[in-house]
């Protein structure tokens, strides 16, 4: 039986992690179908049909799908599920919100946040904030699996031409009403997919001081991250949070500034290829995962760092 991928999109275009989830789906079975649920989402559906790993697109349209409410999405997918062995989605806030609702309707024990497909019924997933890895075999007939997007490469995005089939909408769930979404717009790369992430912690001492980080991030073409402590203190908004309950990032370079390195933060960044830590406390746990550690006062080190970057002839972007 084929695998059903749930596409994440904003009604205009696919969200990038759909491509990572498509890769994971294709590792389970080569017959990948993708469902896209939205309103006026034809362009995104077309994009989905162009992914070479996707063999068929199912498009569901309705005004009540405009805001991706799980209560409206779940019945559609539950109905489609009879033809599929697996339902796959990213383990970001979209998939975390939606998939368990589907799994419960299907009476299936979901496997969350996998980082590797070992076989179609066996998966590797981190537990305890990534301090242990569990190999899990699912004995359910239908498997609901969410994937950690940064653990799978994005699939090719062009060259495919899967047929797009219309599927009937289901009834509206009237007890949940969308009010508003406040998205923080930025010209910087997205935190989840950026090649370089510069993150600040409680050591930044104020929101104003984050401009020292902004400056460096702009110079490097980097995304800006933060520890929970910095978000809780109000220095920066929640969409920047890296960690067990925030985002998981795996950039080529992660620069942790004024971050002590609580287990919960390490869970979100310790798979990064190169890690730099700048902290004045030489005993801070962040140094245990850092490839390059600099024990220094960040208020002295950051202006110097900017100065040194300015001296370079070229910076990779």
């Amino acid at each position: 039986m084929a695998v059903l991928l749930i596409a994440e999109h904003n009604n205009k275009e696919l969200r990038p992690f759909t491509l990572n989830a498509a890769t994971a789906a294709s590792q389970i079975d080569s017959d990948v179908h993708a469902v896209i649920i939205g309103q006026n989402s034809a362009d995104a559906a077309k994009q989905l049909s162009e992914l070479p790993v996707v063999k068929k697109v199912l498009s569901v349209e309705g005004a009540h799908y405009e805001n991706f409410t799980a209560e409206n999405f779940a019945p559609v997918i539950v109905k489609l599920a009879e033809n599929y062995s697996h339902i796959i989605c990213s383990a970001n806030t979209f998939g975390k919100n939606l998939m368990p609702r589907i799994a419960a309707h299907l009476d299936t024990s979901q496997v969350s946040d996998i980082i590797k497909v070992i076989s179609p019924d066996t998966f590797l997933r981190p537990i305890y904030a990534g301090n242990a890895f569990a190999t899990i075999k699912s004995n359910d007939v239908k498997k609901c699996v969410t994937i950690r997007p940064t653990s799978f490469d994005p699939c090719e995005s062009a060259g495919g031409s899967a047929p797009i089939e219309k599927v009937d909408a289901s009834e509206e769930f009237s007890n949940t009403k969308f009010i508003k979404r406040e998205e923080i717009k930025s010209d910087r790369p997205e935190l989840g997919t950026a090649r370089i992430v510069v993150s600040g912690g409680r050591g930044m001492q104020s929101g104003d001081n984050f401009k020292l980080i902004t400056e460096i991030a702009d110079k490097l073409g980097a995304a800006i991250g933060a520890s929970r402590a910095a978000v809780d203190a109000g220095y920066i908004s929640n969409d920047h949070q890296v960690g067990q309950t925030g985002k998981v990032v795996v950039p080529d370079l992660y620069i942790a500034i004024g971050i002590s390195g609580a287990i919960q933060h390490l869970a979100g960044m310790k798979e990064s290829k190169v890690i730099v830590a700048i902290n004045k406390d030489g005993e801070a746990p962040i140094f245990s995962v850092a490839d390059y550690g600099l024990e220094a006062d960040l208020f002295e080190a950051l202006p110097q760092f900017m100065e040194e970057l300015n001296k370079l002839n070229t910076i990779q972007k």
Partner: protein
Amino acid sequence: MKILVAVKRVIDYNVQIRVKEDGTGVVTDNVKMSTNPPDDNAIEEAVKIKEAGKATEVVAVTVGEEKAQETVRKALAVGADRGIHVKVDGILEPLAVSKILQKIVDKEKPDLVFMGKQAIDDDCNQTGQMLSALLNWPQATFASKIDVKDNKLEVTREIDEGLETIEINVPAIVTCDLRLNEPRYASLPNIMKAKKKPIEEIAASDLGVDVSPRLEQLKVEEPPKRKAGIKVANVAELVQKLKNEAKVI
């Protein structure tokens, strides 16, 4: 309005996790255990709503072995009125927990069910959403702000792109983010008082729910260790290393 709050006992968030040598799990013997952190936020929010005169009763429920009752006792010490302990040995999957909670909801008929958005042991992030599916109730996950308005809640949710606000009709499920509030500490007099508050014990086997596992945990292992890095002497050396050795800038 009556609020049911589900709490889970987990390894304390400050404990350094150790994997058992035989690969069957992590070491839990002689390890400090606590209430799952966002479950503390769930209790705090329910108690605050009651203190504001918008709820009449807060009931704390846990599902687990004998010692799981500590989490209910702690909830009673910070303001919950009474407790329920569904006794069961072994580790339950979120699907089984949500089926047990469904039975408790049938019995207690709460208007709201609160719980943490995720347990920090298995990191599944499923139970609240599954329970709302089984009950066909609205779900407000990852809540960082809750406004109670008559028979509706306005909830701000933390999502990857920023914040989302939804309005849900009661009865409903809310899963709580750590930023929802600042959980209070139990005072000594309240800890003493909590000892007199009732906790109803129910055997999971009496609820008629199939809790048998669907997943097999084949192995638990340590994640690959990062090789030890170096300390650099100054910023100039750091930038030089990043440019010429790591080649990442």
